[in-house]
């Protein structure tokens, strides 16, 4: 048994002529928090969508717990949770129904128990019980992210994905979300894969960082190693300079 929770080999995905992921390899170890950084449009969201089967890769292999998931018809989502960039809450449902979606949908839990459980998890992400009956449209962006987080962790998944969890939030709220991510992941012992271009957030939540550039992982290591690295691509991205080997396609 390998200790890799997720093992990606030669993953290739193109849209038309545009190669987004080009024979990419990536390992996510059991229980670690891996952060993938990279510029806008480098394919970070595409990567996460391929792993979850929302997009079908053109070729390559993705193994979770040693099982191939590309093209599988099994329900691989049971052990995964996902926080979307825009929270993606269902606006036809109330906040607690969003959080308890899985409990109501699959397990035959009663409405009352599901609501109690939802309120418990909402508390865990710092939301008061009276938020439960609101509609998602009545919440601020930061609160929506928290509800999204609650929805992702309520069934205690083994793997949690975070798609740009701090984008669009003020720095303080961003840090609150960072803390919640660390807490909930540690609390569950979950493996997490976060994609972001927020370096402050990456430094805070990462056990290991990987950089995606032109369809490949061009560097990976710990935060300490990152600060010592002299990889010019990495250096440019960290310092946020427009001068360097990375050319933005405008």
């Amino acid at each position, binding site marked *: 048994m390998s200790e890799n929770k997720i093992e990606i080999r030669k993953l290739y995905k193109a849209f038309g002529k545009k190669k987004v992921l080009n024979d990419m390899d990536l390992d996510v170890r059991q229980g670690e928090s891996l952060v993938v950084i990279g510029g806008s449009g480098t394919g970070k969201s595409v990567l996460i*969508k391929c792993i*979850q089967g*929302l997009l079908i890769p053109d070729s390559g292999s993705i193994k979770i717990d040693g099982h191939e998931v590309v093209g599988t018809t099994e329900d691989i989502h049971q052990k995964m949770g996902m926080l979307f960039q*825009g929270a*993606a809450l*269902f*606006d036809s449902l109330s906040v607690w129904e969003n959080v308890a979606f899985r409990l109501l*949908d699959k397990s035959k839990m009663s409405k009352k128990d599901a609501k109690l459980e939802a309120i418990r998890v909402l508390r865990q992400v710092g939301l008061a019980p009276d938020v439960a009956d609101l509609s998602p449209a009545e919440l601020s962006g930061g609160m929506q992210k928290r509800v999204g987080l609650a929805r992702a962790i309520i069934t205690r998944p083994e793997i949690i994905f975070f798609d740009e969890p701090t984008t669009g939030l003020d720095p303080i709220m961003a840090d609150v979300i960072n803390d919640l991510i660390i807490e909930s992941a540690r609390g569950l012992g979950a493996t997490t894969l976060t994609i972001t271009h927020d370096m402050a957030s990456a430094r805070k939540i990462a056990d290991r960082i990987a950089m995606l550039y032109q369809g490949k992982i061009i560097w990976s290591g710990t935060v300490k190693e990152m600060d010592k690295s002299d990889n010019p691509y990495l250096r440019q991205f960290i310092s946020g300079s427009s001068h360097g080997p990375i050319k933005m396609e405008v």
Partner: protein
Amino acid sequence: MSMNNEKQITAKMMSFVQALGKPLVAFIVSLGYLSQFVAKSVYNCFMPPFYVRLLGRQFMNMGFYSLPVVGLTTLFAGMVIAIQTYSGISKYGAESAVATVVLISVTRELAPVLSALMVAGRIGAAMAAEIGTMRVTEQIDALVTLSANPFRYLIAPRVWAGIIVMPLLVLFGDVIGIFGGYVVGIYKLDFNPANYINNTMSNLQSIDIMTGVIKACVFGFIISIMGCYHGYRSKGGAQGVGEATTNAVVSSSILILIFNYLITEMIFSR
């Protein structure tokens, strides 16, 4: 000089063929997507879990709240037909002719087609907008990551509602449309009420009603499928959702008219 000319002509021809070919290829490709979508939708209509609560909500939206608009359109349609028949057909025997023509045209054609077009504008558009918004805000992806099948959660309830609700709406429209003809016949054309009702009843045939109901089932299916299809495939934010809404209404309206002809021909041109 002539070489150049020839080149230009060839280039023009090429771009002409290309201009023809591109939309054709795009059309064939989208037909492929559509048939795949329809097959997947129909399959998932019969697979559990069945979301009864969602089905109930679609019934309300599509059925109950469409009653006023369906009633209004069929009422006026019946009234107009009564006047047109009276003025168009010789006045002799007009009494029985008006009742019969109103009956047949409302039940066979006007109630199903007009109701379907109204519901396509009201509900098909709403479906495309709602599902399209869910698509561009990643709510459909979220459904998948929560182990729910979007075809069963979003599309099956809408398709079932379309197939079940449209016939009921059309039956309602039949009654209102015939009533519209009756009102004009009695109060405008001074027919005898008892005779009018008698004429209507003695000409009432189950094939007329059945034709309307069969059409309604097909139209309901078309409205829901086109609304869901365009919503499901929409991309690119608010603009994409707007386009999806327009496309849903236009394509379902055209399909309704085409299928109306086909069904009519199948049943009546023997």
